[in-house]
């Protein structure tokens, strides 16, 4: 079980062309704009979602999942390759006992409601001018590091 996350990294560890890094930067900029203009990076919207007082966040998540799922199905069906003609493969996540997904997911969920932000919005909020979120990011790094430290002793 200790290999699950390592495997994912290695399977996606194809070399990246320097010119492509610029495109990843542009995609990131587009994603930062999207998270801001859709307001999913807002603490208020997250509270509204967890209180079921507006369908908006659920509509956004559901339509995002459907769009992504149809795209992934099309990529598979048509056997599409990357722009550099490499095969596209999505490494399956091993469910195993599922403890890591249930417990880890639960703990992240608490953090999501407390900060009003998942990892992406933590960074987008800094760009939005909520600079105190740098401390939130630092704290998240400590959390991730602590997981790495405890990992051999945690059930997965």
């Amino acid at each position, binding site marked *: 079980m200790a290999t699950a996350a*390592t495997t*994912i*990294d290695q399977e996606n*560890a194809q070399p*990246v062309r320097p010119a492509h*890094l610029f495109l990843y*930067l542009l995609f*990131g900029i587009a*994603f*930062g704009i999207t*998270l801001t*203009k*859709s*307001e*999913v990076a*807002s*603490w208020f*919207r997250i509270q*509204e979602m*967890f*209180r079921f*007082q507006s369908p908006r966040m659920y*509509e956004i998540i559901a339509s*995002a999942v459907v*769009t992504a*799922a149809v795209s992934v199905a099309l990529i598979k069906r048509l056997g599409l390759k990357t722009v550099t003609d*490499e*095969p*596209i*493969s*999505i*490494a*399956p*996540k091993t469910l195993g006992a*599922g403890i890591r997904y*249930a*417990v*880890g*997911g*639960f*703990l*992240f*969920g*608490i*953090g999501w*409601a*407390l*900060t009003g932000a998942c990892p*992406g919005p933590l960074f*987008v*909020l800094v*760009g939005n001018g*909520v600079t105190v979120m740098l401390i*939130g990011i630092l*704290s*998240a790094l400590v959390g*991730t*590091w602590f997981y790495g*430290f405890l*990992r051999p002793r945690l059930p997965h």
Partner: protein
Amino acid sequence: MNTLFSGTWPWYIAGPVIGLFVPALLLLGNKVFGVSSNLRHLCAAIVPGRITYFRYDWKQSGLWNLVFLAGMVIGGFLASYWGHAQDIAISNHTRFALAKLGVHDFSGVAPREIFSWHALFTVRGFVSIIVGGFLVGFGTAYAGGCTSGHAISGLAALQPASLVATIGFFAGGLLATYFLLPLFL
């Protein structure tokens, strides 16, 4: 540009655009859309120690994602710089519920009375930012993904593990919203 940056995007634009990042990253370089891996890459880059979880070539596997992350900060800046500063138009029910918890500032993207340097060492600021941030980092690492990696990429690829994780996200979020927030806000 004007319509792109002024005002809030409706859900039927926002959702599909978010979803399109999954095929965009697959088609560009067979990359799986997921933000929280960056927290691991940053740990691996800065303080790997002797921890096997952080002993890997982060430049090889994570540089593209860290560049994407840097773009997100820039995008967040551009969107708020060019866009009109406006209150988030949450429902009145939410306003009322939050006001009962003692949140009175509804301007900006997050309430300043909690998310500001000034509030960092108040109880509400400390729990929201520092305890919350820690749980985001610990939880996503343990679960091997966050909203983007599990709830979007994972569900889109029909991964059962991601469904378990997503249910966990909402279970934790609901618990915190209804039982923890009233204790410290």
